[in-house]
Structures are given as structure tokens and as C-alpha cells.
């Protein structure tokens, strides 16, 4: 079954948030849970070696993370008396459409309509353990896992139907949830077979699943399965959860990061009718029967905080160049499993006709999911149930169990399909806060973070500095490649260019801000630096950037997307208009291959933004993407489009501004995210490889845009921009 050990080896360094110490220390106790199923058939996937929850244990790097959980991990398929199928997965839906992907995969394997398959997701009491929804792992691991369960279910149901119909199992097949014999003279429905039985079956290890070339429901553009509940406003996100007697909560936040509490006066707040104030160490919170009162109460608390001086954007890159004083867990040097230098940089540089050294930087950016962090917590005795929008329901369960000193089986975490995450919702701080307030109040408590809190107290995509030293021959052959990433991370740091002499390293730093996972992690920063630098080298030896890349890349899959993109874009076919420029970039990460072409226009200053600086308008983006066999072409298309649009922000204008432990732009009015008016013409080329297992697609399509835009700006202006964001206030040069 699923072996996630490879994943564990590759847990990227920049998942810093998983190794951070808990925010609070509370003291509490425990009791018991039972759940039951009705009649029907339950299929159990036998033991699979699944990765331990990677939790930080402090000093020993990744060592503390490596605690294997019990081996027996069950994944369930349930067929009820009406023939309705329920599948269970610990994965969560955050907009990436994995609910639809998994539903159609189960339907495909069972030969039943999509409408009769229901998915229970991200509920720690109902679904098998899961590490979390990240790393583009849902498609490559959960699709085959559920398919195996479904395939075993199908075979067993056929055997049962054969017995009922008194025919040989080989004479039966399932079509659209009906069992048919060869001449269709004998038929049964799924309900007629499943009805009234309660059976448990262990799935054979050797069960085979349907290959992509034989898919009927997978591989098609099934509509988002619960689209109707979204367009009608009926879907209940965590923000919308209500419980009987529920109170509202609010946390009083420190004045700055790393601030310590000097004094707090809660008298005025506590005097407001219905208000309860909770203080516990550095935790200060209030509950009240309604949102207005709780806000008023929080504002009525007088607090003094003290904080020492902390860096700002101005010193950021100097700070990041200094080695970390505190060894963090996760990943090895070089990232992604530990890179080893190859060949000799000295030899490679000696063989070069031209050499180049450049530095690239990226600022912190925010995920800014439209649904901020939220949680509803409810205690029944020592049993805790929390609804929260997290990408790691089981990780949040652990955080809660640790915070309240209760066993994990006393904690249930339920993740309603969530208002996006992009890697930004791996942690459970809001769940812990809500549970602490609910414990004190003795009633369910809903805690919803404001936009300002989400911008300030979540975590950011790491900032970073990247130094590259390289050598190239006049014929365009790359000879040497030295790459140092400070702080941002190791994802996507490895090269697909054939360079015999290379030395690629990641260096940990002390980050001034709380940082962590973000869609694509450091692959965006590493691709930006690498693909900008490759463009500079092509320029240096006077070779077309596409030709230069193809000359140095042997990997067929990467060449294929490069060529597909260039063809669709019309690369090299015509000269760009005056004040327009074109750029190309390519990359590989997490089983996905991407190539991006962009056309930009340099336009006069806009009155609204900056009256003096010319602005960069993205005119057109063409992106080819290949991630193996495509499960749902339309949703893949949608993901790629979304990644391109999200990438525009980080490429051109998104940047967290901070000083002395304070975030200076924690509002959409100050932190600009892409809007309708930023939308370029986007064309997607999907490369479907039915002969290759499907990889995830939520992340990698984001990495090509920034370098393609930077290269296009150079093409238009002759100015090379080496810092993300490239033009927050337009072009200053």
C-alpha cells in the first residue's frame, strides 16, 4: 500500500511551521469516544507504513520528527443498504478540488455514478490518519489508496452478486452500479447486493487498480461535486458553524512579535455583562454572547507589552545571510534530501568562456486565504471537538492534545471544506485558542480571526537570498553552477540542466518573522533565481533563451513542455511590439513539469498608483504543464490558471512590510493582491501522459511565472530585476 517514507525523506526545510514551539502552555485532563456504522460493508486497507506526524522536538534537527505511528492505517470504503458509497480520507478540500478528484476516482474504480459516491474528509474520528494536505500528495498517494479499496470492494461485490445470481463471478461486470451477466439476462443493483450485510474484508495486497488508459470517469471533466452548495451560499465553512449556546471569542494580541507581557488590567472588560475574561500566561482572551460585545470587551482590556528591537525590511537580507543560531528540523543541506556537489566548480569555471555571479532576493509574502483562520471548540466533559479550517486535521489534533494534556483519542478535529489555504493553514493556533476559551467558558466558543490577525499572526512564505556563480562556453554549454539559498528553502533547488560541475546548497537562517509553507514553497524563489540567471547567461553568449535551455536540458518531459509552450506562444515568430517584451522559463517540482512564456508591456505611469513610475502590464501568459495522467482536465486547467494569477502578486507587487516586530501592511488596502484588472490573457497547454502515474498539480504551476515576467521585462527594457516583488511601485529604473 502507500509508503510515504519517501515523502518523509523529502519533507522540505521550509515547512518551518511544523517545527515551531507551541504558542501556549496550558494544564488540563481527559475520557472516551465511540463511533458506529450501520449495516453495510466496510473495507479495510491493511497495514501501510505511513509516516509519523512530523512534529518538532527542538534541537535535534529532524530527529524528533521521526516517530513512527502505529502501522495499521485503515482507509475505508462503505457501501450502504441503498447502494450509496462513502469513501473516507483524512485529506481536506481547500479549493484544489481534491474532493472531486477522489470522488471520481472511486466512482471510476467501482463503476458507479459519481453522484452515488460521497466523501468524508478531514475528520479525525471518521477518517484514517493522514499526514496532511500538502506537498501535492493527495493525487499521487490518496487516489491509488482509495482506488485499491474500491477495486477490492468491486471484486468482492461481484463475488457476492455471482453467488446471489448463481453465475460464475467471471460472467459478471458492473456497469453504472448494476451487475450484469454476459447477455444481460441476469442483473442486480448495488443496493440489492449490499443490502442487509455487514462484512469486513481485508484488501489483498496484490489488488490491481485501473490504469489511466482504461479510465472512464476519471480522466474526464467531472463538475465540482458540491458546486451547487457553494453558488447557493449553503456550504458551511468553519466561519459558518453554529453550536447551541455558542459564545464568541476574541484574543488580545501582543503589540509586536516576541513581545512580553508587562501588565494587564481586565477589570473594565470583566464588568461588561456576559463577558468572561481568560488570562493564562501570555494568553489573554475574552468570550461574550455576541460579536459586538466580545470586540468591545477585548478593546476594554488595558495591556502593556515590552519588546526588544527587531529587524525591518531594510536589514532583512543581511540578517538572512547570517547562519542560524537555532538548528531547525526538516530536510537536509541542499534541501529535498541533501544535495552533494558534483564535479569541481574550479574545473567548471576554468572550462568556461564566460562567468557570471549574481544575487537574487525574495521578500516575505502572505497567503491571505479569503477565509481567515477560524475555529469552533466544544467540550463535553474531557472530550474536545473542534471545527477548524486546517490542512492538517491530525496535526491540529496533536496540538490540541498536547496543549490540554489529554490523549489524542479525546480530541476530534473536523475540517469543513475550507476557504483556501495555499500551504498557510498547517497550524492549529486558532483551534487551541478557541478550545482554551471554551474550556474556561464551559460553552462552545467560536473564534474567528480578523483579516489583520490573519496577516499578522499566521506565518509567511520565507524571504530569502540566493547567490549564483556560473560558467558557460561561447557555444552555450553550461560548465559550472554554484547555488546558495539562504533561508527561503530547498524545494525546487535541484537542476534539470546538465551541468557536470555543480554545488547547490541551502543555508538555514534566523528568520525575523514567523515563516512556513506556501504553495510551491521555495520552488518559486529557486526557479526565479535559476531561470533569471539562465536567461542572463543566454544573453551573455548571444543565444536565444529557448534554444539555450534546450541545448542544456536532456530531460524529455521538460523539453516537451518547453517546446509545447513555445509553440503555443509563437516564440521567436515575431518581434515584440515597441515597449513590449517576451520571456520564457521552465521548471520541475513534485512530479510536475512546467514551462511558461509571458508577454509584458511597459506602460505610462498610472494616476492611481504612482504618478512617476512606468508600470508593467502582463499581456499574455502561455503555460504548458505535465503531471502524468490527467484525472480532471478542467479542474487541472483551473488550478494552473489560479496558480498563474496568484503568482502575479508575488512576482510584481506582494511584499510584507515590517519593522520592530510589527507588520506595517496587514490589510488588503495596503497589501495588494491580484485582482480582475491584473488578469492577462492566459492560455494553458495540458500535456496528458496516460503512461505516467498522476502527480499533484496544486503547486508547481506557480513557479514559472515570476522568472518569465522578469525575463520579459529585461527583453523590453534591458533592465534586469533580481528581487521579488519586481515592481511593487512600477518600474523605478
Amino acid at each position, binding site marked *: 500500500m502507500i509508503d510515504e517514507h519517501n515523502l518523509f525523506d523529502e519533507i522540505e526545510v521550509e515547512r518551518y511551521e511544523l517545527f515551531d514551539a507551541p504558542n501556549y502552555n496550558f494544564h488540563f485532563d481527559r475520557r472516551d469516544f465511540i463511533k458506529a456504522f450501520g449495516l453495510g460493508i466496510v473495507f479495510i486497507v491493511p497495514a501501510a507504513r505511513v509516516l509519523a506526524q512530523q512534529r518538532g522536538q527542538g534541537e535535534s534537527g529532524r530527529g524528533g520528527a521521526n516517530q513512527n505511528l502505529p502501522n495499521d492505517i485503515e482507509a475505508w470504503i462503505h457501501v450502504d443498504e441503498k447502494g450509496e458509497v462513502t469513501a473516507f480520507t483524512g485529506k481536506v478540500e*481547500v*479549493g*484544489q*478540488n481534491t474532493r472531486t478528484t477522489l470522488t471520481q476516482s472511486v466512482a471510476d474504480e467501482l463503476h458507479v455514478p459519481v453522484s452515488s459516491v460521497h466523501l468524508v474528509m478531514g475528520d479525525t474520528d471518521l477518517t484514517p490518519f493522514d499526514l496532511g494536505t500538502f506537498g501535492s500528495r493527495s493525487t499521487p498517494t490518496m487516489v491509488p489508496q482509495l482506488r485499491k479499496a474500491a477495486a477490492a470492494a468491486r471484486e468482492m461485490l461481484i463475488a457476492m452478486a455471482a453467488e446471489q445470481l448463481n453465475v460464475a463471478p467471471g460472467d459478471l461486470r458492473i456497469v453504472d452500479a448494476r451487475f450484469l451477466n454476459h447477455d444481460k439476462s441476469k442483473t442486480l443493483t448495488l443496493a440489492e447486493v449490499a443490502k442487509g450485510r455487514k462484512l469486513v474484508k481485508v484488501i489483498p495486497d496484490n489488488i490491481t487498480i485501473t490504469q489511466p488508459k482504461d479510465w472512464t470517469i476519471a480522466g474526464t471533466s467531472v*463538475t*465540482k461535486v458540491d*458546486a*451547487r452548495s*457553494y*453558488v*447557493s*451560499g*449553503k*456550504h*458551511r*465553512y468553519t*466561519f*459558518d458553524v*453554529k453550536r447551541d449556546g455558542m459564545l*464568541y471569542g476574541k484574543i488580545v494580541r501582543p503589540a509586536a512579535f516576541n513581545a512580553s507581557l508587562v501588565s494587564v488590567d481586565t477589570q473594565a472588560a470583566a464588568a461588561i455583562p456576559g463577558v468572561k475574561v481568560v488570562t493564562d500566561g501570555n494568553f489573554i482572551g475574552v468570550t461574550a454572547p*455576541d*460579536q*459586538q460585545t466580545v470586540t468591545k470587551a477585548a478593546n476594554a482590556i488595558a495591556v502593556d507589552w515590552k519588546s526588544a528591537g527587531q529587524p525591518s525590511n531594510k536589514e532583512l537580507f543581511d540578517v538572512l545571510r547570517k547562519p542560524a543560531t537555532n538548528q531547525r528540523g526538516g530536510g537536509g543541506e541542499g534541501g529535498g534530501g541533501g544535495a552533494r556537489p558534483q564535479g569541481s566548480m574550479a574545473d567548471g569555471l576554468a572550462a568556461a568562456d564566460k562567468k557570471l555571479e549574481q544575487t537574487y532576493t525574495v521578500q516575505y509574502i502572505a497567503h*491571505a*486565504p*479569503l*477565509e*481567515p483562520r477560524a475555529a469552533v471548540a466544544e467540550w463535553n466533559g474531557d472530550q474536545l471537538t473542534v471545527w477548524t479550517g486546517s490542512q492538517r486535521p491530525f496535526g491540529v489534533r496533536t496540538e490540541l492534545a498536547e496543549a490540554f494534556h489529554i490523549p489524542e483519542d479525546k480530541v476530534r478535529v473536523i475540517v469543513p*471544506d*475550507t*476557504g*483556501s489555504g*495555499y500551504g498557510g493553514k498547517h497550524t492549529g493556533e486558532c483551534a487551541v485558542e478557541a478550545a482554551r476559551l471554551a474550556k474556561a467558558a464551559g460553552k462552545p466558543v467560536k473564534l*474567528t480571526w*480578523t*483579516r489583520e490577525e490573519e496577516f499578522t499572526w499566521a506565518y509567511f512564505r520565507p524571504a530569502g537570498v540566493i547567490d549564483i556563480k556560473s560558467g558557460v562556453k561561447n557555444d552555450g554549454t553550461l560548465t559550472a553552477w554554484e547555488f546558495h539559498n539562504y533561508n527561503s528553502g530547498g524545494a525546487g533547488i535541484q537542476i534539470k540542466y546538465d551541468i557536470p560541475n555543480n554545488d547547490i546548497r541551502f543555508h538555514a537562517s534566523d528568520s525575523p518573522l514567523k515563516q512556513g509553507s506556501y504553495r510551491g514553497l521555495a520552488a518559486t524563489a529557486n526557479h526565479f533565481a535559476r531561470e533569471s540567471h539562465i536567461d542572463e547567461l543566454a544573453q551573455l553568449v548571444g543565444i536565444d533563451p529557448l534554444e539555450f535551455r534546450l541545448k542544456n536540458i536532456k530531460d524529455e518531459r521538460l523539453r516537451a513542455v518547453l517546446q509545447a509552450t513555445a509553440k503555443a506562444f509563437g516564440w521567436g515568430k515575431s518581434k515584440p511590439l515597441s515597449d513590449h517584451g517576451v520571456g520564457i522559463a521552465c521548471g520541475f517540482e513534485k512530479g510536475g513539469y512546467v514551462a511558461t512564456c509571458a508577454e509584458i508591456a511597459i506602460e505610462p505611469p498610472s494616476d492611481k498608483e504612482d504618478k512617476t513610475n512606468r508600470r508593467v502590464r502582463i499581456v499574455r501568459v502561455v503555460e504548458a504543464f505535465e503531471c502524468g495522467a490527467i484525472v480532471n482536465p*478542467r*479542474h487541472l*486547467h*483551473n*488550478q494552473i*490558471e*489560479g*496558480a*498563474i*494569477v*496568484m503568482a502575479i502578486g508575488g512576482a510584481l507587487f506582494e511584499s510584507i512590510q515590517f519593522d520592530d516586530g510589527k507588520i506595517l501592511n496587514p*490589510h*488588503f*488596502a495596503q497589501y495588494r*493582491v*491580484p*485582482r*480582475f*484588472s491584473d*488578469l492577462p490573457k*492566459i492560455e*494553458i497547454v495540458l500535456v496528458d501522459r496516460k503512461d505516467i502515474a498522476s502527480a499533484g498539480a496544486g503547486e508547481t504551476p506557480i513557479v514559472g511565472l515570476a522568472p518569465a515576467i522578469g525575463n520579459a521585462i529585461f527583453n523590453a527594457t534591458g533592465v534586469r530585476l533580481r528581487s521579488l516583488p519586481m515592481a511593487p511601485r512600477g518600474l523605478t529604473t
Partner: protein
Amino acid sequence: MAKVTSLNVNGRKMAVDIDSSVSLLSVLRNDLDLTGSKYGCGEGQCGACTVLIDGVATRSCITQVGRVGGKQITTIEALEKDGKLHPLQEAFIAADAMQCAYCTSGMIMSASALLAKNAKPSRAEIITGMNGNICRCGTYERIVQAIQIASGQAREVA
């Protein structure tokens, strides 16, 4: 403090007992359990809370309930009638114009106000008219297409 005692929401008169300074969004969501309108920023910057006030798209998060006491308030919940979706709702599904869909209610309400003023908006008019609404998942192109479908200007979608 002045109180609001009744609201006209989705064609029904609803009895409430709310301070007039409270935001309309809070009243809709917490008091009337109409949770289709979303909190995204609380500052009128993202459009997730958009409702119609006498037909005009309005950010309910920065609208005090005291200002809308006598007016017709329409939320996303009113668009589906007798189990039949509004053409915009159908079009959003047809165009797959959502990912996490947290922005969807606000998008549809803003779009309905746009189409009420301009039955066949051009692409540029759609972009200008919708620019106050954020979709962090980046499904803007599909939302444009959905509005074009709902206004009878497009059919097929990639």
C-alpha cells in the same frame, strides 16, 4: 443607543433587536443565520460580504444596520427560487468559476448588480465592475466567462 427592530431581508420582514451601529454582515450571519455572505476583510476591500441594498451592490461588513432599516436587503440565499438556481449561479457552475468558493457569494451578488445595470457588459466593463471583489484562488477568467454566459454572451468554456 438606537435600536433596529425589523429588517426586510430577501422579501421577508424579520424581527430583530440590534444596536444600529452593528454591521449588517454581523446581523445577517449571527442573528439571522444567513451565512452565505462572508467575512473576508471587514473593511470593504474584498467583496466577500456583498449584498444588494435596494438592488445596489453593497459591502455589508462596513454598512451599519441602522442605515438599512427600511430598505430591501437581498442576500445570496434569495437567488435560488423553488429549487431552481439563478442564471448566474448556473453560469458559475458551468464555467467552473470557483475553487475554494469562499468569494463566490460575493462575486455572484456583485455580478447580479452589474447585470441589472448593464445587461450585456463588455469584458472591460465586467473587469471594472468586478474589480472590488477578490478571488485569492485566481479564478477571475472563469468568473468573467460565467458573467458572459449568464448575460447570453458566451456558451462554451475551456
